[in-house]
């Protein structure tokens, strides 16, 4: 189970959502939405010039729902959120980090495209492929 979302500032509306198991999507969307608050909180807490590229938090581990939410924020305040099953214990921290890095790379590639307006939903096929391949890796 893996869900990834990219949300852009300032309103934090999602630019891209993809989940591997297509059922229960709504639940994941809700989770992501709530996690955005936590992300914002962390961002504001950091303050200063220290912009931590990646952040990993397991704070949203609901005892019942048993999944982890990871967040990652770029320097331009674009947030990436990933929801992973807790049962997937094979996923380690650096794997998550690398996944975020790949996401970030793909995202920058999209940004380079002059036909893409920042703030639009992401339709890029290349990006889709990247995300899909990543998700397949996990599951």
């Amino acid at each position, binding site marked *: 189970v893996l869900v990834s979302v990219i949300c852009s500032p300032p309103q934090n509306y999602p630019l891209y959502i993809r989940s591997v198991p297509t059922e229960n999507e709504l639940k994941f969307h809700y989770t992501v939405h709530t996690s955005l608050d936590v992300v914002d909180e962390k961002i504001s807490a950091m303050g200063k010039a220290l912009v931590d*590229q990646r952040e990993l938090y397991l704070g949203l581990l609901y005892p019942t729902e048993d999944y982890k939410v990871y967040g990652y924020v*770029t*320097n*331009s305040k*674009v947030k990436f959120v990933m929801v992973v099953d807790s049962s997937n214990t094979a996923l380690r921290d650096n794997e998550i980090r690398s996944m975020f*890095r790949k996401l*970030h*790379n793909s*995202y*920058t*590639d*999209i*940004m*380079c*495209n*002059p*036909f*893409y307006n*920042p703030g639009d939903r992401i*339709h*890029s*096929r*290349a990006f889709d*492929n990247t995300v899909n391949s990543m998700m397949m890796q996990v599951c």
Partner: protein
Amino acid sequence: ILFQIMELCGATRLGYFGRSQFYIALKLVAVAQSGLPLRVESLNTVKDLPLPRFLVSKNEQESRHTALYSSDADNPASYSGVIPPPPGRIQVKKGSVSHDAVQQRTSTDQQESTSPVVSPQQSPPTSPHTWRKHNRHPSGGNNERPLAGPGPFWAPFSEAQPGSSTSSDPIWSGHSPPPHQENWVSFADTPPTSALLAMHPASVQDQTTVRTVASATTTNEIRRQSSSYDDPWKITDEQRQYYVNQFKTIQPDLNGFIPGSAAKEFFTKSKLPILELSHIWELSDFDKDGALTLDEFCAAFHLVVARKNGYDLPEKLPESLMPKLIDLEDSTEVGEQTGEVGYSSSPAEAPPSKSPSMPSLNQTWPELNQSSEQWETFSERSSSSQTLTQFDSNIAPADPDTAIVHPVPIRMTPSKIHMQEMELKRTGSDHTNPTSPLLVKPPDLPEENKMSSSVKYTAGNTVTDGYSSSDSYASDPEQIGSTVTRQRSHSGTSPDNAAPPPPPPRPHPSHSRSSSLDMNRSFSVTPGQQQAGVVAYPPAVPPRPQPSQGAGPHVHRPVDAEGLIAHTSTSPQQIPEQPNFADFSQFEAFAVSGVNKEEEDEIETHSEVLQVEKPSDSASSLRGAKADGRVEEKAPATVPTSAGKGTTPLAPPPKPIRRRLKSEDELRPEAEEHTQKTGVIAAVLASQPSIPRSVGKDKKAIQASIRRNKETNTVLARLNSELQQQLKDVLEERISLEVQLEQLRPFSHL
């Protein structure tokens, strides 16, 4: 009817004329031909319709078509094969729809060249071209025609025009026949015409007329196209010229970039949806820099043209459109990209494979540059980066011999006599020793350390081995003395002799450099250590270390085996003594030829080197200079590695090399092991003087050299793996740097 079919096809599939689309079209054609009303359900219900008969009068064709159809259904591969046959055919088909007469002829002329058929097709495409023109260039007809040929044919297919043949009859009558493969022709006949008609209803007549005209003119083009293995994505010369002209209007400098915004405006004029333009951009902006080079621009333009003609955009950039990474060449004519448009599965494989290769090329390239920078510090040679490149490309030269690329400097003195002497002098002291310590080298040692460790190995294990390695190093005459010693240490390090004595100094990938320094030291020491047969040339020893050291830096770090060998080769050469050099040269020759090649020879060289080193031990002032423990490492290392390595050129003077090596050592994170190794080497060196220079133990010497060589081989192999590991690390660093860079990129945009 054609329109209906087209709509049905189009409705069911979004203008994506894939195989399924095509099949549907065919089915619809069959339906239509059977006189049944065209409905979507008819497709499903009338499954057993006879295959569409495009040529009423041609049962043959029909059967062929049937066969083809079924074969296609069963055989994607063949299907794809059919597709490529090209666009030429399809073009013909387009035109052929209206050419019933032609079709009939085709049945007779099945083998007829596709060109005639193609020509008609080409003409239709041209009309679309003109019609669609990106508002840029009204004249692009010729240029676009060839492209249109391949492109639009698929569109016509999807349109599956069954009944159009009738309408096309009059038109076709004028045309010459055709089509390459009847089946295709038959297909083409109906679908193309219908497609054409559908696509350009207004221009049907124009098409027909154009076709007639175009057929003649485009025959050549078509021929060329069809003969070019149906690469629908290839950009013909005319097209390319057109694109280049367009590029110039935006950016006068052909080697410059078109910024993203300008390109956006330009391509927006083509009236394609933004989504597709975005996709085209993704495909064509190969280096992801937000700007288009000439090649990228041509690729993008080509894709736009294709799209305009109904070609679907590929998922990956077709091979023929891929810009050259390192050298901006005309990539359009390269590679045979068969229908990436998704029609052919097999061709589709090729492009994706190429795409990754290109990016990987791109990847490796910057990596090489980056790593070469790092290597620069180690290697005095300016060509280090190049060698690094070589190394990267030859990352796993398991056989050190093959990896050795460095030119071997001219031997100072070729004297086989010395070699023999050395061999004779070799006492049976354990040949295996040197190799074993070398072999043992700890895998995590950095390249530098490897060198030092190897030296230590030699020092610690057996003097003979060290000498033998140094012998092998003797290949480089340029570096005299220190280099030789260095080489020795290298060779010593490379073969990690796990076995006996304390882990022999690791052969540093860069040990060429460090080894040179160490070599000096080690050689000074090792000579004493290496008993068997090493006794030969005590006077020669001192000079050797210097050359070896000199050689050390030269050896590229990345070239593990090479470096090791180089070291070994250079070190022995360094020995100023004439005889030594002779030995070295010989040894080097051996090393180059192959470590395992002639052990005896190597043994000889080893012995010689050893002997040479011995004398240099006492005399080597270099040793003192390089007393940072490198020598120790070098000594043991060189011995084993020298076995095969050989010919790394050790150009830089020992002293600078030494410094470099030192700096390298500092850079190397595994300095600790290095120090440990140096300790080992010191011990070895200490024992060196005790090595008796016995003479007359040929057999033992030979055996010892054999053992040494084996050890050298293992050490080299180990070194190689270590180097590769380091290379991976370097690559990762590079990747991380790139990531950081990209992270900074969005900021400039946002």
